[in-house]
């Protein structure tokens, strides 16, 4: 049905043309789900945009042919192209929050779309819209259709987006990371729905994603992309079960398994990084010299955090919203505790309570035998400010983009009065960069000159330079590609083993937590569902919620037969 041959897209820039995708070929049959997998910058979305004719200016299709059925997609007039979009090719976007107009009722958005492509009365269009909503599993559709997008939950909203894509009976739907913004439970529902639609309506899907687990779960065929080129293409079983290209196998190796704990991720180019480690020795020695005291642990008992709720009346006090309810656990000295939960479960709030950014309403936190003062009662000079360091989720916002790396790194040294001499601070920062696997000349660059993974390494270096004893990692790898994720996880494991750090590791990704943690806490709606040894929880979960999470997480099958 869809046939793409040696497609190349270029972007003119002030440095000459940049080739975004090169020589891409693929075909999608009716009812087939074709997965397009690759890391960020691989050109996956550009392929989708080129097919639907929405390449961002000034990008242009340089060579190649694209056809949908009998229609040549490259030689369409603007009017024809406009007509084809929506009618025969639709698109599902990543974020259901932004792909629906928040000020229009779902009804109006659906009717508008149907009427734009067909000469049909509003009441007929409305009937069709209700039918589609019912088909994709929205109960009570004739009433719900009158609601605004914000009145739907995230998963329901993504269903509405799918309905919007479906309502003109397209032949091909391009789904660009359709489940990336969703929690696992919702993700599996949406994936099931896509599979079902492909089967029942014979719609071809192009599923663009970075998550190999998702591909393994529902795609019929898969193309692996890297740097604008398709490296490998074939049936899912063939490509993932018996990868031919080394990049595909490296990608598969980097995916953390859910069913077992491995010591380290296999890295194809690890030897390259280990040279010149002698420069990092200085930093290592410095860190070890600070290890005069024992490892410290953190006990949390009866911790509650409440936020003021939304004011409903001018006179009444707003009801408070309980973000964390009676949290009790212990991070044993020198161990890694994994904290898992879906979005909104209170994971980050817990991290903020421990660091003193949020004031708990009750409860006690004891770090290494001493109680931590709550919220603002904890002064700037409190020793825990140095002992606890944090690594954040988004390496693009956790480093001040206006400061050079050297300045970012020497800040903790200067602030805590660890090293008085400016030159010494600089040397130590450079050595620390080496320890986390970066070149020491990185010290004079700005953060934007680094990739996401390198920035996260800088963030790790910064936290280590404070000589912390307790490290909080809040989703440290969720913004990163799998291969980079594997590198960072390896790095964290190495550092933890070397320096005996105590780590609280927060993630929504069960497989990552399994790889990292000794103990695990499962959090849901601010309450602890399960707490225990990692192995026990992953192999013999007792709480229903944990079982559900484990069963819904997309995994790579062990064997493909």
């Amino acid at each position: 049905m869809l046939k793409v041959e040696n497609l190349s897209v270029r972007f003119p820039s002030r440095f000459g043309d940049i080739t975004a995708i090169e020589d891409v070929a693929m075909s999608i049959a009716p009812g087939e789900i074709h997965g397009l997998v690759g890391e960020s910058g691989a050109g996956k979305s550009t392929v989708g945009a080129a097919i639907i004719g929405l390449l961002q200016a000034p990008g242009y299709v340089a060579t190649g042919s694209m056809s949908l059925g009998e229609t040549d997609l490259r030689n369409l007039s603007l009017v024809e192209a406009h007509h084809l979009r929506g009618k025969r090719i639709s698109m599902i976007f990543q974020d259901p929050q932004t792909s629906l107009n928040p000020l229009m009722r779902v009804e109006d958005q659906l009717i508008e779309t149907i009427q734009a492509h067909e000469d049909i009365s509003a009441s007929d269009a409305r009937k069709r819209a209700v039918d589609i909503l019912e088909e994709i599993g929205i109960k009570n559709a004739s009433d719900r259709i009158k609601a605004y997008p914000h009145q739907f939950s995230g998963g329901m909203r993504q269903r509405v987006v799918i309905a919007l894509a479906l309502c003109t009976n397209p032949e091909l739907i391009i789904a660009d990371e359709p489940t990336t913004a969703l929690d696992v439970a919702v993700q599996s529902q949406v994936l099931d729905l896509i599979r079902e639609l492909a089967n029942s309506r014979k719609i071809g899907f192009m599923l663009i994603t970075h998550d190999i687990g998702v591909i393994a779960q529902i795609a019929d065929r898969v193309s692996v992309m890297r740097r604008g080129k398709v490296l490998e293409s074939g049936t899912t079983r063939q490509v993932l079960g018996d990868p031919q290209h080394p990049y595909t196998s490296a990608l598969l190796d980097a995916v953390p398994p859910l069913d077992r704990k491995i010591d380290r991720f296999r890295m194809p180019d690890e030897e390259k990084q280990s040279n010149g480690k002698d420069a990092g020795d200085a930093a290592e020695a410095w860190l070890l010299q600070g290890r005069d005291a024992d490892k410290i642990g953190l006990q949390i008992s009866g911790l509650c955090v409440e936020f003021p709720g939304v004011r409903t009346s001018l006179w009444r006090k707003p009801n408070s919203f309980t973000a964390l309810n009676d949290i009790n656990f212990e991070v044993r000295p020198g161990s890694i505790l994994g904290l898992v939960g879906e979005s909104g479960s209170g994971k980050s709030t817990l991290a903020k309570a421990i660091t003193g950014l949020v004031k708990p309403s009750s409860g006690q936190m004891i770090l290494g035998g001493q109680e931590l003062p709550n919220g603002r009662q904890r002064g700037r000079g409190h020793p825990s400010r140095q002992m606890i360091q944090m690594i954040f989720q988004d390496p693009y916002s956790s480093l001040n983009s206006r400061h050079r790396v050297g300045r970012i790194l020497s800040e903790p040294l200067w602030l805590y009065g660890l090293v008085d001499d400016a030159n010494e601070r600089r040397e130590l920062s450079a050595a620390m960069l080496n320890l986390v696997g970066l070149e020491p000349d990185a010290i004079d660059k700005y953060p934007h000159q680094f990739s996401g993974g390198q920035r996260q390494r800088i963030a790790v270096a910064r936290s280590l330079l404070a000589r912390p004893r307790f490290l909080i990692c809040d989703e440290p790898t969720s913004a990163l590609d799998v291969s980079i994720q594997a590198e960072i996880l390896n790095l964290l494991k190495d550092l933890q083993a070397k320096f005996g750090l105590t780590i609280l590791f927060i993630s929504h990704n069960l497989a990552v937590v399994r790889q990292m943690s000794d103990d695990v806490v499962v959090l849901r709606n601010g309450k602890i569902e399960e707490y225990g040894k990692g192995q026990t929880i992953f192999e013999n979960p007792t709480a229903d919620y944990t079982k559900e999470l484990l069963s819904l997480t997309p995994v790579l099958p062990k064997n493909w037969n």
Partner: protein
Amino acid sequence: MIAFIKRYEGLWLFTRSPAAIIAAIVAFFSIFGAIFAPLIASVNPYDLASFSLMDGLLPPVWEDYGNPKFLLGTDDQGRDMVSSILYGARLSLIIGISAMTIATVLGVGLGLAAGYYGGRFDMIVMRIADIQLALPAILTALLIDGIARGILPTEVQQDLRVAVLTLAIALSLWVNFARTARASTFVQMQKEYVQAAIIMGQRPIRVMFVHILPNILGPLLVIMTVDLASAILLEATLSFLGIGLPADSPSLGTLIRIGMQFMLSGEWWILWIPTVFLVALVISINILGDFLRDVFNPRLR
């Protein structure tokens, strides 16, 4: 040269924007002329001895009876229009730039602190800003001018005119800076690098000025240029209304006020030449501000 320009995105964008280039040329010559007015101008319009009533009301050179000594003609007192405009622009720019500087320091300081601390402090600052916005800028200026006239002894009043005018304009402009700085600070406060700095236990002053300020400089620079234009206009308006600078030390607004008397009497140049100059100056500063906004906002690129 081309390679050098390509290295810097802003310069590269600049070479592709004819409007920005023209605006930059106009602004450059106006500011250059204003700074070096004493060297360029043929006469000093403040020096009564340097001009003669006999030369009064001469038209520009290209009209009949034009005198090549006075390129753009003279006013009723016989003052050379070119010199008057250069000296007028000098005063206008001095007042505009110092008013803008005071407004920036005051507004950014308050806005940063309001955004950082939030809560009650934020509320107080923002309510004061709201009140300030409810008063038209001219009214604020009139008020301060009135107070200054009331409390200052008459001898110093003449000498302090420029200072009073500057303060009046600054006080009506600081709100823009405070609001923008506060809103941008709120955005930065959510960023993890700021949280990291707070968790580390850095001093609030340091977090505000070392971490947040450089990151909100973009929008502030844009407001600075736009508000520089507003300040010049406000000064011109006040002078035009007669509460700004007196006729013996004319700014652009004063020149326009004097020219008003000749609008319909045939001596058009006395009104129109300073007016066109003022409009050109303000428009070019605004275009440059717009251009800066495009440079600083990656999404508009």
